[in-house]
């Protein structure tokens, strides 16, 4: 049966689950050797300094032990990086991404059509990038932004076209390869991702979006996203991810670095819907200067295990951080997410809202750290985590660490854990909703305080994903 026929016969879940036959132009060997890294860098025609950074990162990766000593961390023992194919270049003529969907091979075009990306681009976005396997295959931005000096291109192209900016910011002060084992791995084999540059005082009104699609079995995707928002600028960057389900494990280990300059405002939103064979281990960090604002919005829906703790370093006086995270864990899933904030200057402010849902034996964990440095006076932080469990088999943990080294601060923390109420479900059933719909409505209500802060299209998408997750495990 061709994949096309296959698609016709499946239901909505197939929207993310469908697979395409793999046609690639270049594919690295499994595992990690210096030789592999050199090949990737050569295939990309990179400058020497980037190759050197990759090789240094590889050394760091080899030296660092797998993290196994975190309290309650997800089990990574099934993840064998040596079995992962780190780099696959799809068979696309245009390097750096086509500007027209029609220029892409049918199967790739078809994939993104199914995911609804071209339509969203027409209606609600300033720009779109789409990555297939290891490379960005499509990149486009409305001209009016280009005219104002906004850059939205794929990361590989940025290495060539914006070399100085990249050399200065790429895995140097924000997320150095030495940060953790998977950041080091990422530094060695990264490929694709987005580069976003917003000049001073430019406000990009509609969001820019990147979509990362992993299609091949047993591969790793390591896209790198670098966002630089100059003084007084504003941008909303959205990232979507998905992969079809396979028997062997995939690895996604993205890196995100955000530089929020004085008075700038960056929102980074992501809905991750990896298939349930994917290990999702990311490092995302922002450095926020004086009076800048960083907003992280994360929906972690899929994957076998996720470890993701977006971090803001509030470096300048008056800097602000907002974190919103939603996690959903079904059968066999361990979603370990949270937030990290470092208050390194006075008058800084952070708010963290986390909602998690677990069912059918899934586990969610909120793991967070708020650090307030000595001297960061008049800073405030508020952390709120709520967990909803569907049944007695599911687990929800909360680990909100606080390190407060300054006395003149305002700290608030609240956590609730509850099971979905039988009386609530019966009440809705008695009005005509069936058991599944009743539970779905309760879950939608549970995350409502968060979805109401999202752009409407995005909130709808999130609700739909949760519906799919719930149908999948209920059916």
């Amino acid at each position, binding site marked *: 049966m061709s994949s096309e026929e296959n698609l016709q016969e499946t239901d909505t879940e197939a929207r993310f689950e469908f697979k395409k036959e793999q046609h690639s132009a270049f594919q690295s060997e499994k595992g990690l050797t210096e030789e592999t890294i050199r090949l990737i860098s050569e295939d990309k025609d990179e400058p020497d300094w980037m190759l050197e950074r990759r090789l240094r990162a590889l050394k760091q990766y080899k030296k660092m032990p797998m993290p196994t000593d975190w309290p309650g961390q997800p089990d990574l023992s099934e993840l064998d990086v040596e079995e992962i194919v780190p780099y696959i270049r799809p068979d696309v003529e245009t390097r750096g991404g086509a500007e027209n969907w029609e220029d892409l091979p049918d199967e790739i075009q078809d994939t993104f059509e199914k995911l*609804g990306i071209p339509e969203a681009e027409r209606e*609600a976005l300033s720009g779109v990038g789409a990555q297939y396997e290891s490379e960005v295959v499509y990149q486009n931005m409305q001209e009016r932004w280009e005219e104002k000096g906004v850059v939205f291109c794929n990361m590989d192209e940025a290495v060539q076209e914006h070399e100085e900016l990249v050399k200065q910011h790429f895995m140097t002060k924000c997320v150095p390869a030495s940060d953790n084992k998977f950041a080091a791995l990422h530094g060695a084999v990264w490929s694709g991702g987005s580069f976003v540059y917003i000049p001073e005082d430019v406000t990009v009104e509609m969001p820019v979006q990147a979509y990362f699609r992993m299609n091949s079995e047993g591969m790793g995707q390591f896209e790198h996203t670098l966002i630089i928002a100059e003084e007084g600028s504003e941008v909303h960057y959205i990232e979507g991810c998905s992969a079809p389900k396979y028997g062997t494990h995939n690895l996604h280990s993205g890196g995100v670095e955000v530089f929020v300059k004085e008075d700038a405002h960056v929102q980074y939103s992501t809905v991750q819907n990896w298939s349930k064979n994917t290990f999702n281990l990311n490092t995302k960090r922002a450095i926020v200067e004086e009076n800048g604002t960083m907003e992280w919005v994360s929906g972690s829906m899929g994957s076998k295990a996720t470890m993701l703790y977006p971090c803001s370093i509030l470096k300048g006086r008056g800097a602000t951080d907002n974190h919103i995270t939603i996690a959903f864990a079904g059968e066999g899933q361990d979603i370990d997410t949270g937030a990290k904030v470092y208050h390194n200057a006075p008058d800084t402010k952070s708010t963290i809202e986390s909602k998690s849902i677990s069912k059918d034996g899934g586990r969610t964990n909120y793991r967070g750290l708020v650090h307030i440095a000595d001297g960061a006076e008049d800073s405030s932080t508020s952390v709120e985590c709520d967990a909803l469990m569907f049944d007695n088999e599911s687990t929800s943990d909360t680990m909100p660490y606080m390190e407060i080294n300054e006395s003149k601060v305002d700290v608030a923390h609240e956590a609730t854990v509850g099971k979905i*109420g039988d009386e609530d479900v*019966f009440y809705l059933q*008695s009005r*005509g*909703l*069936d058991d599944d*719909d009743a539970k779905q409505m309760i879950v939608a209500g*549970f995350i409502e305080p968060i979805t109401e802060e999202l752009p409407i299209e995005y909130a709808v998408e999130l609700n739909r994903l949760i519906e799919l997750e719930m149908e999948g495990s209920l059916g």
Partner: protein
Amino acid sequence: MATIELKNVHAEVAEGDEQILHGVDLEVKSGEIHALMGPNGSGKSTTSKVIAGHPAYDVTEGDILLHLEADDFDGIDEIPESARTWDLLELEPNERAALGVFLAFQYPAEIEGVTMTNFLRTALNAKLEERDELLFGEDEDEDEDDEADAGYETSPMEGPADEGEVGVAEFQQLLSEKMELLDMDAKFAQRYLNAGFSGGEKKQNEVLQAAILEPTIAVLDEIDSGLDIDRLQDVADGINALRDEQGTGVLQITHYQRILDYVEPDTVHIMLDGEIAMEGGPELAEKLEDKGYDWVREQVYNAA
């Protein structure tokens, strides 16, 4: 004309074997108002819950039947003959709701994050869809096609195009009319379902939901408790309107004569120890107010 019929209903708590109902016989027809009275613990609330299908109770003996006539549902010309008598005990709570059985809760659940408008429209559409399925059988092929279309042709950044039988605009019109009728503030429509409502507001909301869902049979469990006199009047108006305008049959569970002054029952049933012990006209409620349940007990047990 619809009739709900309880025949010799025995029920116990599902976890445990405490028997609460010992053979309840009761019949309520469209357009009638029945009062069900009785002391605490006599089984009134349990009766209401087994009618609605609460999973915490098991019916161990007896039947709960719903009889429909051909033209009982507005918008449906003729209910097929094979779909006119229903054994409610075989149906899920939402299927009972779809056939027009409504329970107004004594303690309605509070659902955070779900607006009244969203909830009620979803419920109304779910009810109409389920009712069609029950009466005319499922048309699965069509449903699946719809879903596949929704999956592929709409963007993931949009909601499903499918709006249900009652669209947003039509529903808002309906909701504001019913709210006005019950003298409810328009801002209720955007509040979360019962969340932070006062006791009285919750009761008003139960009657509003009945007005929207247009039940054939409504069981109202202590709808009058916690109501001040003004709101009691509003709620009573709502109940009378259900009966007068929609022909709903009402089974009203209450401790007090007070609401019966506003909603005059055709029949009063008095429950003792899990059975209907005495029945009569509206005057029975007055007598009860005068003489108390001990009098009923004396009458019943002396006679027996």
